[in-house]
């Protein structure tokens, strides 16, 4: 079957600009942040301060959400697809 309707070519320019602006703002904001010295990072090294610390939990959650919602991803590449969505 050949769909006849033209597909939209990705995102509107405005939305792409917003995405780039968020990234740029997040990196330029770094210059305003007081640097933390290596010996001051004890708290940051705690397991609960690590993003996606429990990776099997994250994988289950991502998998079950993507089976019932349209949005997916965001945290990084890898992992592959499934027929559930």
């Amino acid at each position: 079957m050949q769909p006849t309707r033209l597909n939209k070519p990705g995102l509107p320019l405005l939305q792409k600009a917003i995405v780039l602006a968020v990234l740029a703002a997040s990196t330029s904001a770094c210059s305003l942040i007081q640097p933390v010295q290596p010996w001051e990072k004890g708290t940051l090294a705690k397991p609960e301060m690590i993003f996606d610390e429990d990776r099997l939990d994250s994988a289950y959650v991502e998998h079950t959400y993507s089976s019932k919602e349209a949005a997916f991803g965001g945290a990084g590449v890898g992992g592959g697809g499934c027929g559930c969505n």
Partner: protein
Amino acid sequence: MKNTPDGNQLLSALLVSALRRSGMVAVAATSAALVAQPVFAEAAPEKSTINFKTLSYRDYQPSDDRINIDAESFLIQVPIAGQWSVTGTAVHDAISGASPRYHSSSLAQVKDTRKAYTGAVTRYFQQGSVTVGTAYSKESDYISRNYSIQNSWSTPSQNTTFIVGLGYTADQIIPNSIFLTQKEDKRVVDLALGVTQVLSQTDIAQVTYHHTRGRGYYSDQYKLYDARPDNRDSDSVLVRWNHHFIESANTLHSSYRYYTDSNDINAHTLEFDYVFNLPNQWSVTPLLRYYSQSAASFYYDPVANDPWADADTFGAPISVVYPLYAEGRFASMDQRLSSFGAITYGAKLTKHFGENWTADVKFEQYEQKGSWALGNGSDGLKDFGARSIQFGISHSF
């Protein structure tokens, strides 16, 4: 840990016995693997980690059960020579229950199993790391293969970490219904760009931009008159922030994701969880999540009385959807492409045994309603809910 107390030996025996039952020991030993790579640079792990987790999941609508999933997953991460690590995961899902042929109606029985393996090798450098990964997933009607590479590097202070990831996924859809007569393919390329920033001694934040570009078969072969564009491009921005409270020793995790795609779906996800540290190495983490999406441009709502609908298609807008389908235009009555909002609440209870053993249990309740969407929600769909419980055990050595 110098000595292994009896409690730890018991946990070890339980873990090994659970792995044997799930048939994952051989798989885990031979396959390198990863779940989606965490987006931050880190030093090579000092210890090996094994982690086993089960999931019992059930979703439902009023008066009908939908899908049940019983899953077991296993992760192993091993450091090698101080500069390398190998990570492997294996997942086995048993899926059963009923899936609607359109909207939330005409439930059809389904039964399948899914086996998925991921593997990754990471090389660590002074200021960063490179990870190469692969993933394979197989169901009776769907096979997915993924390859990815990710590079992360930090500033000399290690306070800022940048990450670039590239992925390629090649999927095969195997015909198993009257709506699909030959094998179909789907190819997805994805790119992730991220920045992780230490904000203070108690704050760390991360911004990730994720773009995917997919080409191939996106329709659902089990849905009635389902015809979707053969491309889907998506963009998302995920912002995460972890804050630790020194006085209480508790931690707040916050995140927001904006998602938009070429099907005209825009979605917002806001999530919080709060780790209460309790005495004797216990912690409890309540969580709250809100999700909202707009409908796809080719999604059609249920109708009360369609002139073309019969007893088998009652409530479906057949006089609208069938002509579009017959002409090769786009249409779908999939609830997942409608406009809705959803709330999840739950909690995770974690117990550490010394430095090297952890056990956890997590409960989550999910509710989805058209009226909870930001803006106009879709009408006429039954409410939808899900409940899940996880049990996990982790050991490092």
